[in-house]
């Protein structure tokens, strides 16, 4: 593995996570709890599609085999997808969607903030744009966590359930491997383990305002999205997302 290969993999991972989460936001479109929130979730979906396109396009350029962003997004199977498993979890309800948006968003925010200092200009440029977007996603989802946690009895139960269920995917948000290590050495990527503490502070602050109990450490933690180990949900999501490209492989859209 050389730096180029590592950076390709790194970009595809970021793009995979963004595209899968955008797909989950797309599912809300037309079904949100109120028009204003429908519009807000579409905005976040659009931000994430934009992030995915940016990183896929860069990955395609690094790979230099004439593939496009769509070739990478639509022509890999679930074992080849490298997104964080949290984002492929179904929406279940609005609380799940907001809790996921917050937990993932806070980690993405920190990662992009560090990547703005990347030695690779394209990465730092994409990170700067993504950072602004994630700043807003975190603000939006924190406000919702606080309202749901301190709203009605029902919303309190729902938001706590979502936190309890999604917590098993939080360690993975900071998982790294040899790809990260190589790029850290080259000043391109950032060390996620160093961001964990700050992430915990962000979570603690919002949870305490919301009256949400942070799950005790030691529970099961899912791992391995970056190596293509996923939950059962991803395959279904992809079969829907990739349907047209797979059914008409010779078509342009």
């Amino acid at each position: 593995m050389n730096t180029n290969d590592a950076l390709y993999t790194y970009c595809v991972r970021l793009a995979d996570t963004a595209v899968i989460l955008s797909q989950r936001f797309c599912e809300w479109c037309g079904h949100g709890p109120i028009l204003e929130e429908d519009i807000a979730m579409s905005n976040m979906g659009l931000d994430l599609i934009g992030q995915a396109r940016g990183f896929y396009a860069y990955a395609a350029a690094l790979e230099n085999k004439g593939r496009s962003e769509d070739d990478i997004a639509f022509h890999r199977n679930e074992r080849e997808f490298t997104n964080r498993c949290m984002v492929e979890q179904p929406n279940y309800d609005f609380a799940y969607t907001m809790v996921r948006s917050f937990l993932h968003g806070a980690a993405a925010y920190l990662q992009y903030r560090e990547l703005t200092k990347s030695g690779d200009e394209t990465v730092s440029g994409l990170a700067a744009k993504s950072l602004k977007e994630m700043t807003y996603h975190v603000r939006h989802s924190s406000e919702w966590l606080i309202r749901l946690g301190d709203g009605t009895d029902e919303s309190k139960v729902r938001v706590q359930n979502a936190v309890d269920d999604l917590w098993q995917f939080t360690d993975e948000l900071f998982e790294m491997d040899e790809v990260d290590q190589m790029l850290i050495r080259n000043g391109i990527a950032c060390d996620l383990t160093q961001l964990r503490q700050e992430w915990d502070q962000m979570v603690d602050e919002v949870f305490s305002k919301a009256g949400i109990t942070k799950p005790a450490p030691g529970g099961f933690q899912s791992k391995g999205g970056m190596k293509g180990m996923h939950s059962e949900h991803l395959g279904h999501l992809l079969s829907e997302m990739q349907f047209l490209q797979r059914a008409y492989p010779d078509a342009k859209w």
Partner: protein
Amino acid sequence: MNQQIIQEDDIRREEEFNARIAAGKTIEPKDWMPERYRRQLLRMMSQHAHSEVVGMLPEGNWLTRAPSLMRKAVLLAKIQDEAGHGLYIYSGAETLGTDRSEMIDQLLSGKAKYSSIFNYPTLNWADMGAIGWLVDGAAIVNQTVLAKCSYGPYARAMVRICKEENFHNKQGYQIMAVLMRGTKAQQEMAQDAMNRWWWPSLMMFGPPDKDSPNSGDLMRWKVKLQSNDDLRQRFIDRTVPQAEAIGLRIPDDKLKWNPQTRHYEFGEINWEEFNNVIRGNGPCNKLRLKQRRDAHAEGNWVREAAAAYAAKHARA
């Protein structure tokens, strides 16, 4: 009290109102207006707003299957605009004294109508092209005229909306154009969508003028500025050449250009189908209402929670 004086007063006010309309003045929410004007406008505006919101569903059906990331982004932005349109028109309609939640209750109970075009299913990707191009195209023809209507909040909502609609129309046409340049399967997909959406699009302008019950009043009040048939003709005249340019066939054997009138002549519209769909017997009437009801019911706890939080934290 004195019934006669009140009546005379109303007659005088109505004459003043009619004179203002005739002079091309805009009516604003706090102006006096005849009760029938208020009712008709509320009916029209709430129907229009419902149509924007229900209209998100057929396109939403393909959002998660969009064939490229660019198409997905464009479609999501487009459907999101429709949510915005619903929002602008609801807020315009609220100035007539009815809350958005009340209007939504009327939609969900089946009392209020929405455009029957959205009771047709989206069965292939080309339907996204057909909707943007034909359905939004028809909406643009309608809305451009409505932007000059006599009720200020409605007209202003239309101005804002018209600015966004051209993007909808263009992205739809581009989807069709790309498909027509594509493989045989893609061309068939596009033609299939054309065949299914053409006639319902023509129905969007409403029944022929001779059978349009509310048109008289609405035209006099300048809520409606052109008749259903005129608008339909304008839509056909501008759309047929667009279809021809990309090689799509219009599914109408009687369609032909009349060089004398400088308009296209077209075949008989199936008004029985139109009336059936309006009465609730279209392919997707039940589904669309169910989808809206489910979203509303599932969102209730969310709206309730935020309201409860706000009440707890309101500054005394």
